């Protein structure tokens, strides 16, 4: 889809020392961390639900999802509220502080092996200066069953 456009706007967030991106179009808002109510009997990476202005919203911890070591939440911790289809989910990230334009020509398909992460939820990577930006595939991250065009 991005191939047809010249640039794509991404929200950049960090987990550990890696930078990730998620398309602005999929993001509703970015919130500070607040009390999360655990929901028993769900996947480990589902931290629970929060009350976002009167709406109950499930929260996924991306660190747990990406098998990264747990990290206590700090004042920089953010919840990125995303929307995929009818499903609204919040993602806990270490920080989220940038919106950038990436030319679609800069995006490359994911390499066969990227570090130790299981890489099926990586949609593309982009080389930005010295850093590599990982564009995540929301549907895969959230385990939403649907036919995703790659």
């Amino acid at each position, binding site marked *: 889809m991005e191939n047809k456009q010249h640039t794509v706007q991404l929200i950049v967030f960090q987990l550990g020392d890696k930078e990730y991106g998620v398309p602005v179009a999929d993001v509703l808002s970015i919130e500070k961390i607040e009390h999360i109510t655990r929901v*028993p*009997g*769900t996947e480990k990476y589902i931290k629970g*639900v*929060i009350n976002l202005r009167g709406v109950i919203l499930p929260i996924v911890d991306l660190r747990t999802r990406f098998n990264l070591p747990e990290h206590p939440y700090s004042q920089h911790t953010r919840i990125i509220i995303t929307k995929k289809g009818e*499903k609204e989910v919040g993602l806990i990230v270490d920080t989220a502080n940038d919106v950038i334009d990436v030319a679609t020509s800069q995006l490359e398909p994911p390499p066969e092996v990227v570090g130790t992460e299981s890489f099926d939820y990586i949609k593309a990577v982009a080389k930005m200066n010295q850093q590599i930006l990982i564009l995540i595939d929301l549907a895969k991250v959230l385990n*939403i069953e649907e036919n995703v065009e790659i």
Partner: protein
Amino acid sequence: MEMNQYLDLFIEESKEHLQNCNDLLLKLEQSPEDLFIVNEIFRSAHTLKGMSATMEFNDLAQLTHQMENVLDLIRNEKLAVSSQVLDVLFLAADYLEEMVESIANGGNGQLNVETVVKQLQSLDSNQPLEIGNAPETVQVGKLTYDDYEWTVLSQSKDTDYQPFEVTVQLHKDCLLKAVRVFMVFETLEKNGEIIKSHPQATALEEEQFDFEFTVTILSSNTKEEIEIELLKISEIDAVEIIAIDLSQASEEVAVAVEETSLPTKKEVEVTQQQTSSFKQQSKHGTKTIRVNIERLDILMNLFEELVIDRGRLLQISQDLDHQGLQETVEHMSRISGDLQNIILNMRMVPIDTVFNRFPKMVRQLAKDLHKSVNLEIIGAQTELDRTVIDEIGDPLVHLIRNAMDHGIEKPEERLAKGKPQQGTIILKAYHSGNHIFIEITDDGAGINKDNVCRKAIAKGIIKEEEIASMEDQEIYQLIFSSGFSTAKEISDVSGRGVGLDVVKSIIESLGGYVTIQSNEGYGSTFSIQLPLTLSIISAMLVEVENEKYAIPLSSIIETAIIKKADIMKTHNQQVIDFRGKVVPLVSLQSIFEVNDVSEEIPETLSVVIVRKGDKLAALIVSSFIGQQEIVLKSLGDYLTNVFAISGATILGDGQVALIIDCNELIK
């Protein structure tokens, strides 16, 4: 034309007007002399016609138009209200309903209305016969003609052309009168030659007339043909065409006109009076606006945010110990409490909106079944949540049909049994606690338990040996099993194989129950119990370690403190003796995997006894917080099928508490 944005409004309003028509037709049946009712029906039909014409639902417009014609005759006392007339009107209303329903379901509202239109037209054309000396040729006309005009008219005698006076009555709400005039002229010109108009053409163009104007034309077509052509133009109320009798001398015409012009004026006055009486009438109705239910939900969500902030303010004011601040916050709390009640009540709708369609249905059914039935409605003003209202209609239809088909006996049978010939069905709604009860009582044959049992065995629903141990209520409940139908022959009224089992499942999906009481030979009562609202429930808040959960009060029997010594063990399952019953003990801590599951059992345990049907379970909690009205919210589309959690709610401090689904905890 892009009409989609108006479609919802159109459907809603059409339904309202149709309902109004139906109600009034029923009233008219009771008091056929009451012209006020006729006027009211006319008004509804008229609005409906206008709306459907605008929306380009032509069949709908055509039918309402014919209906309107008949109603017009009635209100002008040219047609008496007979049962034949009413039947046709009811039939027309049925058709209209069907069409509106079709539009609501995404259809185009097209329906073959010819038969009913013909019936209406036949009533319509009866008019001259009934009033005898119709002013066909007796009256010469409304206009005066000068010599020239008269000559032209006279000359037509020798040709195929015939002179007509066409009087067109425009819709009272017509905005662009000049446009309609133009359309009328254009249509007339197609049909013949325009000789004269009153008021003059220029005045007509400048809209210098009330709602009526007269045109004299020469046409080779018959007056019916012209009338049909003209009625195709929208916003025209009525067309009156009079053939001009040319045998009369022009002087006489002039005199006649003097005389006839007076009644025309009177007519206008009459219509004005009518409009003013309509206005008075409309003032009596309650004023309402339509609000999308989603907006109400948003309002509710925002309000909850406000409540949370109120809690925080309350805390801060206490910490600051400032009297002025405290008083203000207290006042705010009271106001927001009132506000909460209002917002909650906004979702409440009187059950009348469901009940009001039944009188007509019962009337029709009684006719079809050749039974005489009187429907009594009690408590139509009882209010319940809009979401429940939307769902409850179909089950009630089924139950009423069932009562009429299987309950109420045929008149002869009733007389033989010493009952009044007319059967009675009582539809009653009332509040009790947090529930609403809807009862459908008939004084019919009642339920024959043996028949039910035999049938259930034949259908393989139960086994013969089970019957002995079954209580009456259990036997009655068999009626709700799928595939059960006690009617010996399948009628199209009820007993289509589907039916009562659907009723039960809908009501249960709404969190309600159906119970049956029956006295064979004297009738039965179907009683539906429903929660008042699906969005707000009473719940007990409990703590499990440091997590808060809500348990719906409807499934709680009681709370208790038990001693460790009272716990017994059977087959690896801990149980307690609760009022002589053995109740399994369920640890919420281990089921919900709350951290630090300790094997150590404290000396005393707080338990909540919950039930599912008649099975019980005792849930161990750390502490009770208290009872509270909570707003039920879903966990969203992402988290589905969470075990033993039916939803979530937001507590006063803004945190989320999960709602426990006791049904899943009890096997």
